[in-house]
């Protein structure tokens, strides 16, 4: 997996701080699994958290807090957490955590058409909800910008827009003022994952995309 497009630094900083919503964090974490450069950068951002923790005004803990912690570590029998057995059903195109959230066969998801050769599927619930978009070969997604904090990761296939060519593992993390028009490359469906920082609200670009399709 040759990565050419990375999350931006503001996104890595928020991932490190704990301020990035779950679905966006899942994309970043999946990218970090295959990108040592962004991992090193994230470690630098975590060092900011370490510096702030080291310098914060301490607040005395309750009486007996240490005794409770010591009792808890006495009760701890092993320490190592067992890994859940790999069922072999997980997706093989992406590493964990997204790879483990998706089925091996993406065709088994429930897809519904949103027009212009584009289909959509949803995985997960609430804050962790991600959407998958499947664009038929050679089809253009209407020109759009990204209102909230939205990120895309390519799972399979590829597309090209004003910024460049996006291949599996690449992350699209655009500033809100950037407008682009992805066109899927001709050979195969382009499947990508979309996460937003407000998955429960009807404000993402897919709804806007559908609105624009209705207007067409």
């Amino acid at each position, binding site marked *: *997996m040759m990565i050419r497009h990375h999350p*931006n*630094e*503001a996104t890595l*900083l*928020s991932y490190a701080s*704990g*301020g*990035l*919503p*779950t679905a966006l*964090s*899942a994309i*970043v*974490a999946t990218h*970090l*699994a*295959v*990108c*040592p450069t962004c*991992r*090193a950068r994230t*470690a*630098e*951002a*975590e*060092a*900011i958290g*370490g*510096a*702030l*923790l*080291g*310098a*914060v*005004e*301490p*607040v*005395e*803990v309750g009486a007996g*807090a*240490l005794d409770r*912690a*010591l009792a*808890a*570590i006495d009760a*701890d029998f092993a*320490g*190592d957490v067992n*890994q859940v057995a790999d069922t072999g059903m997980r997706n093989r195109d992406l*590493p*964990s955590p*997204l*790879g483990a959230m998706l089925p091996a066969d993406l065709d088994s998801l429930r897809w519904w058409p949103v027009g212009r050769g584009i289909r959509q599927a949803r995985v997960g619930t*609430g*804050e*962790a909800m991600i959407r998958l978009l499947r664009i038929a070969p050679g089809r253009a997604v209407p020109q759009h910008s990204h209102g*909230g904090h939205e990120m895309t990761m390519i799972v399979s296939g590829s597309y090209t827009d004003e910024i460049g060519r996006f291949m599996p593992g690449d992350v699209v993390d655009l*500033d809100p003022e950037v407008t682009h028009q992805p066109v899927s490359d001709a050979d195969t469906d382009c499947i990508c994952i979309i996460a937003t*920082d407000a998955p429960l609200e009807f404000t993402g670009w897919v709804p806007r995309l559908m609105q624009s399709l209705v207007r067409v």
Partner: protein
Amino acid sequence: MKQVPGSGSFETTGPSIPELNRLLVDIAEKRSRAAFAELFSHFAPRIKGFIMRSGTSEELAEEIVQETMVTVWTKATQFDAARAGASTWIFTIARNKRIDILRRVSRPEPDPEDPMFQPDPPQSGEEFTQSRQDQVRVRAALEHLPPEQVEIVRLSFFDSLTHSEIAERLSLPLGTVKSRLRLSFRKIRSALGDER
């Protein structure tokens, strides 16, 4: 000495950074309860202070402190002083516990055991990584940030606010929030000698 507003003095008391790292190694290698008690007395009040900055209740902050420090004990063998100092490593555990407890979701993390996981290249040597994460230099860099950048970093780390939430809190366009975060991070990285 200039301070990051409201973050308390940078004059640390108690064990030095190498001593704190040493305590974690003693916990990992000797399962030393004495080392754990000393580490607890240093970090527990700081974790509590950190968590309570966002307005989290004292009760929940105490719960996060407990969960964090017990995890420090169970995962101590994973601590690697060449990768991150004790304070940074414990920050990451507290951050994750806060997400687990307050948001009731577990934080997505890369899995080094995943067959597709790409290990670090050999050239990212120990000293390089260590110098880039030097806590003292990060603190100095924070002190030199303009107030509007410090504010946004603090909202991100202390309050765990998303970009959109920061934009709303400060009545700023989302693009401004992102560019301020990016600028502040770049300045801190360049203070750490990472000019990429």
